């Protein structure tokens, strides 16, 4: 099983190449019986256009290692931003995307008004648009470094 997770670790989000699908939290179930591997995946946002691409990448990564993958898209365990691992959040920040705040704090969307700038760590920031270049990103402005930045949206 560890070997399979290791293979899945190599498959990255096509729009955030530093983040593996495992760390993104979209792989919700993995089971293996001999060479047959069953994987359940779920989209970050229902309308995510990268879902089919990511599914094909998972299939191809497993096939290359000699497995017979059965990959299913499922909403049984819906994605939320809390499923991003600590490692994944660190990778996002390093990539220049503010990681989503902990959902425990996220009872109201007012939490969106500011976030920590991934470049200078300032909290003197402002939400400019809850919608960004992809469905999972919002646009902020940092008054300290005077630059716009993006956040991976909490959900």
């Amino acid at each position, binding site marked *: 099983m560890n070997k399979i997770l290791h293979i899945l670790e190599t498959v990255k989000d096509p729009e955030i190449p530093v983040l593996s699908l495992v760390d993104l939290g979209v792989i919700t179930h993995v089971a293996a019986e001999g060479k047959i591997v069953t994987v359940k995946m779920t989209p970050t946002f*229902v309308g995510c256009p990268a879902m089919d691409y990511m599914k094909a990448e998972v299939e191809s990564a497993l096939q290359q290692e000699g497995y017979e993958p059965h990959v299913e898209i499922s909403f049984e365990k819906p994605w939320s931003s809390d499923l991003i691992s600590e490692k994944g959040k660190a990778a996002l920040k390093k990539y220049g995307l503010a990681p989503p705040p902990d959902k425990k704090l996220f009872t109201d969307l007012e939490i969106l008004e500011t976030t920590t700038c991934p470049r200078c760590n300032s909290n003197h920031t402002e939400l400019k648009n*809850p919608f960004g270049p992809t469905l999972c990103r919002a646009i902020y402005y940092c008054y300290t470094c005077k630059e716009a930045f993006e956040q991976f*949206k909490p959900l």
Partner: protein
Amino acid sequence: MNLALKELLYKMADDQLILGHRNSEWTGFGPILEEDIAFSSMAQDKVGQSLALYTLLQTLGESDPDIVAFTRNANQFHNCILVELPNQEYDFSLIRHFLFDTAEALRFEALSNSSYEPLAQLARKIRGELRYHTLHANTWMKQLGSATEESIARLQNSLEVALPYALGIFEPSLYEAELIDQKIFIGEAALKEMWLTKIETIINQTQLQLPDWKTLTPVYGGRIGKHSEHLQPLLDEMSEVFRIDPTAEW
């Protein structure tokens, strides 16, 4: 149960698809860049949500989602008329976005407790996404609904035009009793009551005025395939590429 459930899924999927298409017509034309991006993102969300609903229908024996979306004529669509009306100016699009998305968010919230588990699972996912849509609508309603004489007058006018159509969202289905009995859905009447309260709460934070609800006549027909003259041209445009070669691989 199947007919009632299918009718519910079809009207929701068609609402999402048609309004998603209308939202996408703002791409490249938004009054400011942020609004261009916002309406385009909401379009992508809604079309994606319609795909998920058509996919559920497929598991119940209906055709492939692309066939369902691109090969039906207007009289086979179950969306409410509100969503098919042309975008017009930004004020009308904003009012429609506010009126429709408020109802939609409440609908998916209610469906997250549906006895039909695949729909409940999907609703639990979609309701979170819709918070961003209602946040967007409410923010602009509060800002522009109290901004200048012109912004208030424009929104007031669009509100009065849109409200009878918005009440058409809740056109009762033939299957209301069945859906309620089987705990699939709380029903249109209950949804409408929650919607009225929510709409009033937001409008009361602006300088806009709601007319007396009793004076309004809902525009029905969309749910049974009786549409305005605006739907067929939208469908012709939306399916133009698909119809050239339905078997093309993308």
